[in-house]
Each structure stands twice: as structure tokens, then as C-alpha cells.
């Protein structure tokens, strides 16, 4: 069983979203880091200030097992990227929900309601 906090929202692509005054803080779930195994590298495919579309890719994470894209959960503008992760990508394995990857100012804050809640995500991954 992986950790799925009730306070967060989720996507089917295994991202978590925490709303912080209209800004979506985005990371990958505990389930995702467990499936990836040890993460060795994170690459940002977009820059701060970029406007990003829903389901576009803004980063990719590489583990010893595979490389996976990270998708934009909801359209908006990237206001911050967590560059510290590039020096310490293992932080995602150690604390998936404490290791945010991007902060996105949403074009439509209300769209968050359309994301999965904890129960919905748990059902999706069969837990």
C-alpha cells in the first residue's frame, strides 16, 4: 500500500496537486516513485514563465529502470521549478509529497475540482 494523503488532488498520470493560493504545486505520487525505483535524474522540458497546456510534458524523471514523462495536470503558467531536485533527485524517493517539482499558476483555478481525489486515485491504482 502506498501513501495517498486525503488533502491532495491527483491525476491518472500519477501526479499529485496541492493548491496554494491559486498556484498548483505539482509532484509525483508515492506509488509513482515506488514503481520507478531509484530516481537518478530529473530533466525540465519547460522553463519558468512558460505557458503550458494540459497533458503536455514539462519534465521527465529517469530511474535505473526507466524514463518517464511528467505531465501538466492543468493548463497555466509555470512560476517555479524545483531545481534543487537536479542535485538530489533521491529526495523524490525519500519524500514524494514533500518534493514538489513545479508550481503552476492555473488558467482556471476551478478546474482543480475535475481532478481525482484520494479515493479516486486509490481506486485507479487498485488500492
Amino acid at each position, binding site marked *: 500500500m502506498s501513501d495517498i494523503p486525503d488533502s491532495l488532488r491527483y491525476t491518472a498520470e500519477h501526479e499529485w496537486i496541492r493548491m496554494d493560493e491559486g498556484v498548483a504545486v505539482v509532484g509525483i505520487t508515492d506509488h509513482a516513485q515506488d514503481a520507478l525505483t*531509484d530516481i*537518478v535524474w530529473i530533466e525540465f522540458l519547460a522553463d519558468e514563465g512558460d505557458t503550458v497546456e494540459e497533458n503536455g510534458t514539462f519534465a521527465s524523471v529517469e530511474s535505473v529502470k*526507466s524514463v518517464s514523462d511528467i505531465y501538466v495536470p492543468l493548463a497555466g503558467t509555470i512560476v517555479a521549478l524545483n531545481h534543487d531536485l537536479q542535485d538530489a533527485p533521491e529526495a523524490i524517493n525519500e519524500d514524494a509529497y514533500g518534493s514538489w517539482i513545479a508550481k503552476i499558476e492555473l488558467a482556471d483555478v476551478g478546474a482543480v475540482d475535475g481532478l481525482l481525489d484520494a479515493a479516486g486515485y486509490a481506486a485507479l491504482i487498485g488500492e
Partner: protein
Amino acid sequence: MSDLFAFNGAKGAGYAQPAPISDDFTIPLALQRSAPARWPRASEPEIVRHYTWLSTRSHGIDSGFYPLGSCTMKHNPRVNERIVQMSGMNDLHALAPASHLQGLMAIFHEMQEVLEHCAGMDTVTLQPVAGAHGEFTAMRCIQEYHRDIGQANRDKVIVPDSAHGTNPASAAMCGYQIIEIPSLENGRLDLDAIRAVVGEDTAAMMVTNPSTLGIFEPEISEAAEIVHSAGGQMYYDGANFNAILGKTNPGLMGFDAVHYNLHKTFSQPHGGGGPGAGPIGVKSHLADYLPAPLVVASVDGEGEPWYDWYDPPKSIGKVQQWHGNAAATVRAWAFYRRYGRELEKMSEHAVLNANYLRHRIMNPTDEVRAGIHAMPIDGAPTDIVKHEFTLNMSPLKDATGVTGKDVAKRLLDYGYMAPTLYFPMIVPECLMLEPTETESKEAIDKFADDFLQILAEDPELVKTAPHDTPVKRVDEVWAARNLILRHPLDDE
């Protein structure tokens, strides 16, 4: 431990620079080395011992079973080596005129025809020297074709999520945008997913058939029709050709371009980085764009066959110097000549071996089953696979914590190369096995018994494997995070 750079014999030992042929040409001072290159200084016996020592510490198809899925690690017949070492093959110069190369060109021409026939294509080039190189070359031909007919706007390539990673990489190298489509629950192509993404911007779809799950796509013709009706081209990844040779071909399935891996299907040795050979075949509408040169046949004044080099009129240009990996082509030709019209037997035995191994692993005796912690799940819900199959090792991980990787490492202790691990990514905890046609029933039985025994072993023993190899478990995570890309020298 033997380190090539630790050899430090007499100054000048081990190599001799020939005297310059002419003083007319000298390398400009600015381009000359400031200090002599630091070569190892070793005598011939020292070098021979070094490499012999290394060879005893590695694993190859000559030292044991090598079920590396999707790589088709078959035996490399020694008769191929005899043929390729003949002076008529080996002592030629690439710049020799065609009149001095007629024998080799006859082999090239026959190989072009054989490959055309095997794949149902109209024209073949032997130029590309690896599978991915072939993919890139073919995708460039498709790109030129679209530009030529005024459809340069086609900039998207569709790739299923079960594809080899080289497919999207090759297309991206051409500047295409990749659209990945999900597979159906049963691992097969999803026609609706294709319909949803094709359009006026579709350049091509790249498909491996049988797929990386080892299953044949029964709806491949319908898929081709959907892509074609949108104006796109169909590209066939020939990685899994070993499964279908002589039974069906990509031309019949509706493909426009295909690559072959002579180092997989046609027994050219591979592993360790090559040399490979990745010829491509295309339908006639793409033939004018192929890289040069091809070999064409005619008849001379005395009625004898005569071979010439031919440059296609709208060629994308060179993708490799000279004539591809000529020796690989000759070995592949020798392999084909041993089978002749019986080549389909090769595929029959490859498929039989894969199904037999899968059956042996998935159906242990009650006695063996009683000791096993948890059985794997078939990676594809199908009765019959083609030349390879996948196993989902999740039940073992859930029951004991032993991962697919741990089982792969433990197999090294038994003297086997590990199967392909964690690919395709649509199968959790995936192991992918391909025995090829050249293993005996006894060898496959022994492997199946050993595999099942590992599933019954003390989980701690498996998690800490390998134990009996020259190098124990390596710290892959540390290695990936701390890249050292250059051999450090003593004086650094």
C-alpha cells in the same frame, strides 16, 4: 585484474608507426598533439593475455544460454566466418572499381533480392549499420517523399506504447513530433486510438509486429488502412523478424518501409556494440530517396551477369561510408545460403522454442510448484506467443520482496545471461525471454528447471545475487548519479 593502461613495458613496445609515405603532406602545427598520445606499452603476448582474460570474465552466446528478449541472441555459425575470411571478400578495397568487386557485388545484389522477398518490399539498401540507423534512414526517406509530393506539413509520427524506444528516438531525430498511443488491455494495437490521432499531419506510424509482448497483431491490415487513408506511411520495425520469416511479410500487412537486423535474424554476431547491419526495404514510391549506392544487375556483352553501383535520383544522401558493414552482409548471405528455401524453418523453430520455454515455466510439476513462493503472470493473455514472451514477476515481489531484477541477477549465478528486464514498460516487473531457434530442448529444459528453482529459493539469497560472478551486485544508482566518462590516467 588486468588494466590495459597499467602495461608499461619498454618504450615503444607494442606498436610501431610506419614511416610517412611522403613529406609533401604534414599535419598543420596547430592540429598536432602537444605531447605524444599515451598508448599502453605492451607486447603481443601481454595483449593476447589481457583480452583472453577479459573474455573469461564475460558472458556471450559462445559461453552460455542468452535469452535476452527482443535481441535474438542466436548462435553465430562458424561457416559464416570461413566465407567472410576468404580473400575474395576480405582483401578488397572499398575504392576498387566495380570490375574488381563483381563477386562481392553479386552477393550484395542477391542479399538485396532476398531481403526484398522476405519483407515484400520493392527495393533494399544495405547501407545502414544498425537497426536504429535503419529506422532513421527510412524515416528520412518518408520525410523526403512527403516534401517531394508537397506534404511537408506531415510532422507527426504515431508510436504504440509497447514500441522499442528507438522508434520514437529515430523519428524525433528527423524532427518529427511523437504521438504515443496506448495499447488495449490485452496488449494489442488499439484501432480506435489510431483513428483518434491520425490526420492531415500524420507522417507515419511505426509498429513492431509481432509486438514486444511476443504477440502478432491480427488487425495490422486495418491499422495500415487507417493510417494510409489519412495519407500516412507505415513503418515496420524488423526487430522481431525472427518470428515470421517465410510465413508472412510486412508488405502483405500493408507496410511501406521496413528495417532488418542482420545481427539478429541473420546471425551476424552482435552484443558489445556491434558491428551490426540494419538494411532497409521500401515500396517503390520510396525507392528514389534511398541512400546511395545500391547494387543493380545487368548483362554484359557476353551474356554474363554484370553488377553496377547505382545512386537513386532523389537520394537523402550518405548515411554510412562505402557499402555499409560489408562483412556483416556477407555473413548474413552465408547464413541465408545454408537455409535457402527452408528459411521459414528457422522461424518455426524460434516460435516453437519460445512457446515450449513459456509452457515449461508456467506449468511446473505439482512437486516443483509446492516449493515456489509465487508464480509469475503471463505478460500477454494469449495461448500462443511468437518468438518471445514476457513474464510479470509482481506476485513474487508482493509475496517475498524479490523483484524481477533480483531474479535476473540470480540467473547470472546459474551461468545464464539475464533476460531483458523491465521492458516493455506496459508489463509490471517484466522479464522478457527469447530463446531463439538455436537452443536444444535439453538446454531449454535445464533453463526452465533452474528458473523455477530460483522462484523457490530463500528470498534473501536471490535479493543479494549474484554471488558467483567475477563482479557482485553493482550499485547502479550510484553509477547513474556519479558518471565517470573517461578512463583516468596515472598522471592525472
